[in-house]
């Protein structure tokens, strides 16, 4: 009688966490070094700095009561901006609530992102030509929709790609599996990004799954997956750019897992990471700060200095202030308008409620 060795039947493919820059900003993998001009290297850094300033400022504005919901992004700039730097304007973007920087980079006016934060409907009224839907709140729901958007692009004969993001916790959702499986089955042009920041609020990565690598979940869907150092914008950018090209060529979906860390709280609504993370672990990750290593890389090339940094930060602060001024001049929202927006063709029963609320609103 053959005794099956079940332990040996656990299969995890070999994954290398792809990296270009080490913590000191040195190029450790020239073969994966993106072929960019000096200005483009600087631009990648500026995008991360922009996001860091935006995150810091959003936190302050939240504390002052001028902004509402905000999910801090610090620590995830290389993952967020490195991926989105490879996005085409015609690509369709489906984000989760922490992915506001990518949405803005894709064309969402900053003031609309802020309106979404304070809970004003105008934040969800996107300009024509912005190929995106408002950020998803239900974890993983965007994954199945991305399969549909990708199939829609394919059926239109478009060469564009549908992009989505979720976190390590999101990979536990049924919609995650259904989304990558559908996209694989239809060979749809979808790019699935898993930003593994180590925690789903407080629940650590190892509780989410017995799978040693989250990216290996793609294996079951029959689609390629790649693991990348999510604190290294050059690696993230190059991997994403190549994945996007492969997808756009009609080869089907790809899943990218970025290994990163959320420096701050889950959201600003009462989460305290000290309840579930060791200080030593945080220190270890702070040393991998994606901005520090890219800044060192640029400084070594003589492309960046503190003066430029200060000037650019001022620019971003001014951009934020300008956006906030628009937010603070939004009209009071009307229930009668919500009712009218609930259906394209408003049924009489709803029209009756419209009239009731219009009377209350003094129309």
């Amino acid at each position, binding site marked *: 009688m053959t005794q099956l060795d079940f332990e040996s039947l656990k299969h995890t493919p070999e994954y290398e966490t792809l990296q270009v820059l080490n913590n000191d900003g040195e190029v450790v993998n020239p073969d994966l070094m993106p072929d960019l001009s000096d200005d483009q290297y600087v631009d990648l850094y500026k995008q991360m700095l922009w996001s860091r300033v935006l995150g810091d400022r959003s936190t302050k504005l939240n504390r002052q009561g001028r902004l509402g919901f905000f999910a801090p992004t610090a620590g995830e700039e290389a993952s967020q901006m490195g991926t989105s730097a490879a996005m085409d304007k015609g690509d369709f973007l489906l984000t989760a609530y922490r992915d506001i920087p990518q949405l803005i980079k894709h064309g969402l006016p900053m003031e609309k992102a802020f309106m979404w934060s304070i809970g004003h409907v105008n934040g969800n009224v996107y300009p024509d030509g912005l190929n995106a839907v408002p950020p998803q709140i239900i974890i993983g*729901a965007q994954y199945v929709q991305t399969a549909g*958007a990708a199939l829609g692009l394919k059926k239109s004969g478009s060469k564009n790609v549908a992009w989505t993001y979720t976190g390590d916790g999101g990979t536990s959702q049924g919609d995650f599996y*259904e989304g990558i499986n559908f996209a694989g*089955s239809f060979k749809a042009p979808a790019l699935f990004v898993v930003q593994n920041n180590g925690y789903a609020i407080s629940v650590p990565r190892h509780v989410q799954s017995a799978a040693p690598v989250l990216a290996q979940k793609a294996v079951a869907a029959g689609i390629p997956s790649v693991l990348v150092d999510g604190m290294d914008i050059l690696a993230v950018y190059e991997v994403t750019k190549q994945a996007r090209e492969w997808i756009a060529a009609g080869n089907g979906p790809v899943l990218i897992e970025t290994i990163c860390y959320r420096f701050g709280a889950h959201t600003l609504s009462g989460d305290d990471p000290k309840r579930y993370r060791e200080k030593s672990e945080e220190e270890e990750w702070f040393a991998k700060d994606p901005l520090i290593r890219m800044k060192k890389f640029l400084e070594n090339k003589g492309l960046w200095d503190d003066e430029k940094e200060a000037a650019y930060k001022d620019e971003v602060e001014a951009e934020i202030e300008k956006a906030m001024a628009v937010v603070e001049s939004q009209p009071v929202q009307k229930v009668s308008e919500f009712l009218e927006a609930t*259906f394209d063709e408003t*049924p009489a029963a709803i029209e009756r409620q419209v009239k009731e609320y219009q009377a209350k609103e003094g129309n």
Partner: protein
Amino acid sequence: MAKLTMVKAITDAMDEELARDDKVLVFGEDVGKNGGVFRATDGLQEKHGEDRVFDTPLAESGIIGLANGLAFTGWRPVPEIQFMGFIFEAFDQIAGQMSRESFRTAGKLKMPVTIRTPFGGGVHTPELHSDNLEGLAAQTPGLKVVIPSGPYDAKGLLISAIRSDDPVMFLEHMKLYRSMREEVPDGAYTVPLDKAEVKREGTDVSIISYGYMLQESLKVANKLAAEGINAEVLDLRTVAPLDEEAILATVKKTGKVVLVQEAQRSGGVMNQVASLISQDAILSLDAPIKFVGAPDTPYPFSDAEDQWLPNAEDIEKAVKDTVNF
């Protein structure tokens, strides 16, 4: 014009719309080569091609999520959920996503999705195939819930649903698929959404119903006519949002109401109808509102359906009690 079953009328509606609008896509489990487990999509893949009519992997949230993503990118999806009892799996994509998009974006993002799904009792299915879940759907703002009671309405309502820029849940009672035939015009025609219809004029009592129970109500009304009771029968057709005007009009006309639904009594469509009548027509009533519905248990084991389902006898008794109050 031919006398068609409801399932054939439904097939014809999709056939017309697939031919008329190349943005229409029909998909779901077994809808392709197999033509659907009830043959509702029979021949559509062969005629319109695999690009327009296609099978999906077996996952309901995936199917409706796919529909949502297709709608985001300009398509007009007509997904099928094989049995309504399976729809719990897809409820976030329906109630949490699709039905909110127009509201969420101040009307900018249109979701022209028609979810077709068979439901309803009396056909001896395994568990979770027959459940009347329209009450759950009806409590979802932004979603229109349509239930035809026969072949003519089914074709016209389905064409209206597919052409509508609002999400529609189109519920097809399994017992109506092949149990009756009606004259159904060739070609496309529409029956308006959001409109109830008086299926039988009467003066003594109003029976308000939809779906298969509408047919049972009509049978009872025709039988009672011989006994001198002239019942009016109102078919809601769209069970959410309700055609309040039509409901109030029949109540004011007869002053007596019997509400008939196959679903469990609590939390369903007819409670909303009763609430409306109580608020806006109570002074027109000269008898209490009578309610015929199923008991508040989960849908029963198939061998117990006859004991559980509301039937013509229940309707007849309710109508007589009301008339003789």
